[in-house]
């Protein structure tokens, strides 16, 4: 039974592999840490803007999954650096022999799965954000006047602070910023005012050309913020999500490389029986045999174990470890 993707590894290339792996692992730790921080930042931003996102919109799932994925990547990096360091030293390697196998499985399944999920979510985010913001901002605007209603009394303050901080007015612009309901006026709250305007802010009777001298509502002017809060928030959050998505892609790439390198190193050293400085040429491989053969061996082994076992062990093969092929 032929091993899958075999690679001959004499001593020098083995040492090079271990050293390169050590570097890659620390790089993975760095990138994993940065991704962790980035997803934490996104989570905090989403928490702050929670009032303006519809509660039914599960936007917070992305940063949470990204957090978990980057933690696993960090762990993989640390394991990788430890193992590659140990593989250069005969005394340190034995304790790693037993642990490395299960860790590789965990890293591939857990880390890979989470990363792919996070990447998928990052791509799907803009659509959900759009609808969530639309609904959330609409509700907030409608609740602006309800400063006496418990549960909604913070809407005015939060919306004012949002408009002051993000330099926006209304949902898609000031036209829709009117208080919906009974008393509609063509005026805006003070938080829509743009400090860059050379004249004191005009907030009321905005569509009446005769109400204010020397002010033409049709002309573009600096009086109020021109952008709507929907666009501003969408752009802001999408920017953060795209940065996170890029970092997740880099983490995924690095993690794949580290896991592959670790697998080759592990199988090469197993081939030598765990002797580090053995001059012999070892063969590293991804899987001991093709998928069909592995399943057959597993089936046979399971069958053999149920009957009283004859004395021969299955030919010196490692029991199949992974059921899923590498991506």
């Amino acid at each position, binding site marked *: 039974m032929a091993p899958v993707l075999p690679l001959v590894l004499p001593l020098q290339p083995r040492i090079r592999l271990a050293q390169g792996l050590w570097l890659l692992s620390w790089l993975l730790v760095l990138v994993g840490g940065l991704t962790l921080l980035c997803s934490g930042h996104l989570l905090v931003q989403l928490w702050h803007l929670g009032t303006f996102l519809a509660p039914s919109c599960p936007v917070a799932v992305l940063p949470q999954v990204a957090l978990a994925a980057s933690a696993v990547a960090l762990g993989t990096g640390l394991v990788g650096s430890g193992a590659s360091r140990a593989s250069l030293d005969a005394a340190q390697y034995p304790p790693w022999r037993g642990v490395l196998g299960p860790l590789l499985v965990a890293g591939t399944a857990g880390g890979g799965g989470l990363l792919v999920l996070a990447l998928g979510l990052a791509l799907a985010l803009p659509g959900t954000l759009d609808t969530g913001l639309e609904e959330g901002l609409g509700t907030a605007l409608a609740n602006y006047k309800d*400063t*006496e209603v418990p549960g909604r*009394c913070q809407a*005015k*303050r939060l919306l*004012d*602070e949002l408009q*002051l901080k993000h330099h926006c007015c209304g949902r898609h612009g000031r036209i829709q910023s009117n208080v919906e309901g009974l008393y509609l006026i063509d005026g805006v*709250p*003070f*938080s829509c*005012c743009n*400090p*860059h305007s*050379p*004249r*004191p*802010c005009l*907030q009321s009777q905005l569509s009446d050309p005769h109400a204010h*001298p*020397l*002010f033409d509502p049709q002309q573009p002017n600096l009086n109020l913020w021109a952008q709507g809060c929907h666009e501003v928030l969408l752009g802001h959050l999408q920017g953060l999500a795209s940065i996170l998505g890029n970092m997740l892609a880099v983490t995924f790439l690095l993690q794949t490389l580290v896991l592959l390198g670790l697998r080759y190193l592990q199988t090469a050293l197993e081939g030598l029986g765990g002797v580090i400085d053995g001059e012999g040429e070892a063969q590293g491989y991804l899987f001991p045999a093709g998928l069909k053969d592995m399943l057959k061996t597993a089936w046979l082994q399971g069958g053999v174990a149920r009957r009283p076992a004859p004395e021969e062990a299955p030919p010196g093969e490692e029991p199949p470890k992974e059921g899923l092929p590498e991506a």
Partner: protein
Amino acid sequence: MALLKVKFDQKKRVKLAQGLWLMNWLSVLAGIIIFGLGLFLKIELRKRSDMMDNSESHFVPNSLIGMGVLSCVFNSLAGKICYDALDPAKYAKWKPWLKPYLAVCVLFNIVLFLVALCCFLLRGSLESTLAHGLKNGMKFYRDTDTPGRCFMKKTIDMLQIEFKCCGNNGFRDWFEIQWISNRYLDFSSKEVKDRIKSNVDGRYLVDGVPFSCCNPNSPRPCIQYQLTNNSAHYSYDHQTEELNLWARGCRAALLSYYSNLMNSVGAVTLLVWLFEVTITIGLRYLHTALEGVANPEDPECKSEGWLLEKSIPETWKAFLESVKKLGKGNQVEAEGVDAGQAPEAG
């Protein structure tokens, strides 16, 4: 009778030198921190120099920056000395420089302490600078057409929004100046003409404030104009209304911000000063312990280290004597004065 004598054997000397080496490199880090803090303070003062008439004193941040750089230099030098102290050959070349170096270190510590004190004392001068600067800033609020002052409106609006304040001491300051530019006043209207005639300087004064004074915490939409006229607004009493506008004046807000900043910076500087004093004392002990090694060929021998060779009053007397001698240095003296009595500079 030496001051604070401590016995040293070889192992203790080595430990002292190693400990001092580590502390010196930590102190270089502390020096970098002080440098960073000074830079940060300078940038913060610069950011709001418009509010202070561009006349604020940059003494504190500049001295912090200088102290940070000096601390890095001195401490890396001291680290090198401590590293070489364990090797008699290398130490020999540093020996003549150590005494003046220690004197410089003591001077540096004194100056660092004074700078730390200044951080706490700057508040007073800042208060008057702010009061002046804000008053002038508010006067230029309406000059959005005058080149060189056209940014003042934006600056003050952003300041009031960010620091949650209104006016110099309170919102009534806005009632006393004309903050609406003449360009946006309709001089054909009777109301405008009445207002301008009603005061000596012909200014258009209103009992209103700019929008940036508005407090988002208020349950009702912001009332900016006719603030003292209760009948102009439904269910409004200007004497009991609290949440409508920001109550604090910008002078108090900025002052408290800068005071907090400088108190923290001062506290950090004091901690670094304590650390430096410890290092200087340790270096002095190392110096005297190594001097006290009687036989340079036998590194194992014990020695004594002290802070001052004689007690404080005697050292002070000796110091004064040497200063007097320096004064009489050009005079030819009949009796040979023992000039070998080197003063133990503290």
